[in-house]
């Protein structure tokens, strides 16, 4: 059975990754999951300098999902390169570094710093709804998406994945803009902006007021966007949003995703990534499919 997939020349043992920000840099989850068995580890967003993140409470549970406004707390790219990359290099998995910033210059600084590091791909987060200055502002304007993609591509030595925001009227517009900017792949979806009110305290459940919604509740929106994008551009897609098991992952793959990421489900079950992987294998066995690539995007 072949589970291997290729994205922009990078060959992954299998299509199962975890979603940025839900898995740290893998250290903590390595007590539960053999990182060698993951297609890739996608790191928490890294900026040019350390970011303190948002005040607490940073998360809230919602019906079938959650809100988060971590605010991209991270130790900065320097510490990241010295501490997290060497840790990840010990495993036989691909390394995708998620990059965040407040200005185009911020992003480029990180991209340059990473360019000679032994990482496999960079995922550019232009879709974080939880920081005021950066992230999502870029991701909601096609001109910005194209410009930042071009700028990143000009500096990056590794293939680039642009990560798209679902908080748009038409996701294909953003996907096409990223493709026009030269991106090698796309990942979607990031979180959907939501709010929860603590009715008894009469205040917001999250200090940041709004947070990004993720988890099984958002899956139908994510599958729809992956399907729309797969039918609008020709670059490969990493699909995510509410994937808990192999069946969920198969929805994304059949809709057109070449690989899938598991995010919030890691909080519901620390071995969720492994359940997704074995679930995909079961599906292939049940449907007598030898090669996962035969299933990508076949539902039209």
């Amino acid at each position, binding site marked *: 059975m072949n589970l291997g997939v290729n994205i922009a020349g990078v060959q992954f043992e299998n299509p199962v990754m975890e979603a940025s920000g839900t898995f740290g840099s893998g250290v*903590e989850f390595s007590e539960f999951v053999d990182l060698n068995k993951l297609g890739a580890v996608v790191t928490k967003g890294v900026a040019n300098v350390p970011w303190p993140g948002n005040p*607490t*409470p940073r*998360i809230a549970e919602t019906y079938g999902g959650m809100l988060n406004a*971590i605010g991209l707390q991270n*130790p*900065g790219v320097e510490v990241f390169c010295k501490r997290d990359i060497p840790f990840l290099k010990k495993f036989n998995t691909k390394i995708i570094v998620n990059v965040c910033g407040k200005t185009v210059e911020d992003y480029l600084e990180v991209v340059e710093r990473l360019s000679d590091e032994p990482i496999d791909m960079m995922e550019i987060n232009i879709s974080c709804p939880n920081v005021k200055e950066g992230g999502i502002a870029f991701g909601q304007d096609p001109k910005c998406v194209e410009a930042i993609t071009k700028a990143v591509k000009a500096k990056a030595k590794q293939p680039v994945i642009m990560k798209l925001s679902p908080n748009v009227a038409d996701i294909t517009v953003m996907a096409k803009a990223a493709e026009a900017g030269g991106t090698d792949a796309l990942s979607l979806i990031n979180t959907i902006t939501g709010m929860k009110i603590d009715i008894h305290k009469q205040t917001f459940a999250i200090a940041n007021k709004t947070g990004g919604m993720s988890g099984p509740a958002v899956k139908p929106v994510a599958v729809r966007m992956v399907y729309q994008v797969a039918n609008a551009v020709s670059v490969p897609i990493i699909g995510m949003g509410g994937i808990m098991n192999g069946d969920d992952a198969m929805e994304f793959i059949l809709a057109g995703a070449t690989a899938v990421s598991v995010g919030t489900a890691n909080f519901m079950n*620390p071995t969720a990534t492994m359940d997704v992987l074995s679930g995909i294998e079961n599906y292939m066995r049940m449907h007598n499919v030898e090669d996962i690539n035969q299933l990508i995007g076949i539902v039209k």
Partner: protein
Amino acid sequence: MKYKEIVTVISQEQIATGIYSMWIQTKDIAKDAVPGQFISIYCKEGSRILPRPISICEVDKEADTLRIVYRVVGKGTDEFSKFSVGETTQVVGPLGNGYTLENRTALLIAGGVGIPPMLETAKALNFMGVKVFTVCGYRNNELFLKEDLEKYSTVIIATDDGSVGTKGTVIDAIKESGVEADVIYSCGPTPMLRAVKQYAIENDIICQISLEEKMACGIGACLACVCKSKEVDDHSQVHTKRICADGPVFYAQEVEL
């Protein structure tokens, strides 16, 4: 070492209004647990996706069982309170650092559902041969866990309504009883912890406090549960620490409350 296990409920008992005591059978979690650590308990109801962090109240290492004592405050704890004997659910643990037990007279200070972790702490200190005082703050005369604590410590009581012991806070009770000790181990609501920290500074006593925050991963990966730390933290490079992984127990002077 942390474990993900499907545990079995072996007893469930209401021990005060809205407060339940549950013993669960684990495979390895209880074996590895130390006082002050907690477990993540998962709901079976699928609309609730995040684990609930609950302190370890008591452990029986030989039987590999552990006890939790929890208050029903929302839908998750309500679900737990309805688990019947023999029912199973997912648990991850033991989590967090736990208290650093010192060989000196101990003052345990706890309020409400901060009291449960004190039981295993008192037990362990008592086993070490340390003299233990436990000051407990209750709402009223429903003194859950008092008798258990008395097996290992001298218990001093404060109640909000004055029905038992000192009427007022745990600090009022400490002052009234004149109890003295070398190390404070504390757990409870933030206003109480603030007062305890203040008391410890004034009296120059080593003070370990256990903090609370909303959690998602429970193992240090998601950065949901941070608190403000005085020093730039090694892991984050900023002034925060992860309560689930670097805590829940901190020396009072390390963190801002």
